[in-house]
């Protein structure tokens, strides 16, 4: 289960964010819900089938420019792997 940097993750069927008006922002999925904080919210909002994994990494490295870029990349790949394990993502070519 390795993640292809060129692929475009998007939320799998049945996985969606709650409404913008509902706090805290939460990723709803079959039999589970994940509360999203700053960085995880930024990641999930970009899992739209348009951004590649690489683009998500670049954008978050800019957004969190004070953090070590390699650490940001590692955290993103770790989080995407977690979502993949939950079967919350489809990876489009």
């Amino acid at each position, binding site marked *: *289960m390795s993640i292809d940097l060129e692929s475009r993750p998007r939320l*799998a*069927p*049945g*996985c*969606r964010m*709650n*409404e913008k008006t*509902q706090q805290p922002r*939460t990723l*709803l*999925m*079959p*039999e589970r*819900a994940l509360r999203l904080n700053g960085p995880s919210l930024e990641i999930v909002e970009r899992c739209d089938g348009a951004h590649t994994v690489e683009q998500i990494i670049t954008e978050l490295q800019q957004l969190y420019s004070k953090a070590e870029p390699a650490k940001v990349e590692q955290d993103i790949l770790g989080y995407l792997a977690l979502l*993949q*394990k*939950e*079967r919350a993502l489809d990876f489009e070519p």
Partner: protein
Amino acid sequence: MTSSIANPLALIAELTHRCPLHCVYCSNPLELQARNLELSTDDWTRVFQEAAALGVLQADFTGGEPLTRPDILDLVRAARGAGLYVNLITSGLPLDESRLEGLVQAGLDHFQLSFQGAREETAQEISGTKAHAQKLRVLEWLRRHRLAVTLNFVIHRRNIEQLPEMLALAESSSATRVEFANVQYYGWAFANRDGLLPTREQLTQSIDFLKKAQERLAGKIKIEYVVPDYYAKYPKPCMGGWARKLMLITPSGEALPCHAAKVIPGLSFENVKNRALREIWEVSDAFQKFRGESWMQEPCKTCDRRSLDFGGCRCQAFLLASDATATDPVCSLAPQRPKVDAILNEINSVGAGLAPPAVDALTKPAWLYRPNPS
């Protein structure tokens, strides 16, 4: 808001007890509620709104068969409109392609299709109905929608050896999740337990098979597995702890902390028609009864695991030890564990490890089938 009680996360909506199936392990109580007692569309709509305001994230539509409600599309719309994530747990029976389309349009998030086995004859024995072929049709329709699909296989002694066939069925479908949930022994399943509990050997083999399947299908299909807790070393954290995460509403509007709570004598349940959901959750007697740890006896009271499993299941404690405050008798530390061991010894000495008998009619258990309420 200074309430110290955490809000519920899911609302189990038993929309009806009516069902075209008669499964021998049905989780409904032995005393089924009739159609004329069922909550109206408006009642449910208000319950969904109150639940969302209370912090509930998900609604689980179940029954009985929720699709027997003629207003099912309105109910999905109402729950979704209230801001809830909507799960439908169904046999797929009263369904055709246009009704499925309607459910998707109404905002259904997740479709859970229950199976009684991988073969028609098993499904028919267990449900007392011919239903399997329809389920296969439903799987075909589901492919045409971008909808989360889970296949729910209820596992027991009579079908546990069909796991490879069940998994193959799931792999050929659009499902992203499969649940292999062993029967839990309450209600109808408790009455039929001797015919349903798998042998230790069957269980060991099944766990081995499913672990390998989980690895092979990681990232494609999520496989969940629930073992029969009679074989466990420690009890399950039933419902995530009494009145900690879940709330169940019966067809007539009673609010229960779990499916089986009505077996416990002396508990009284409030009805959503008479009292606000928040009050029922926070202060009603039934929800307060086993919340926290003050009700616990030894060994739970001082056990390191009490914050992990909350002493196990109160209903099971009553069913097996005749005391709802006892340690769940399936726990290896429970004084009443010998009762569970005696049940397992019985199961494992009769026909353990044998292939299914050739002359089925003679050895078939005398099932107690669940009727359909009026």
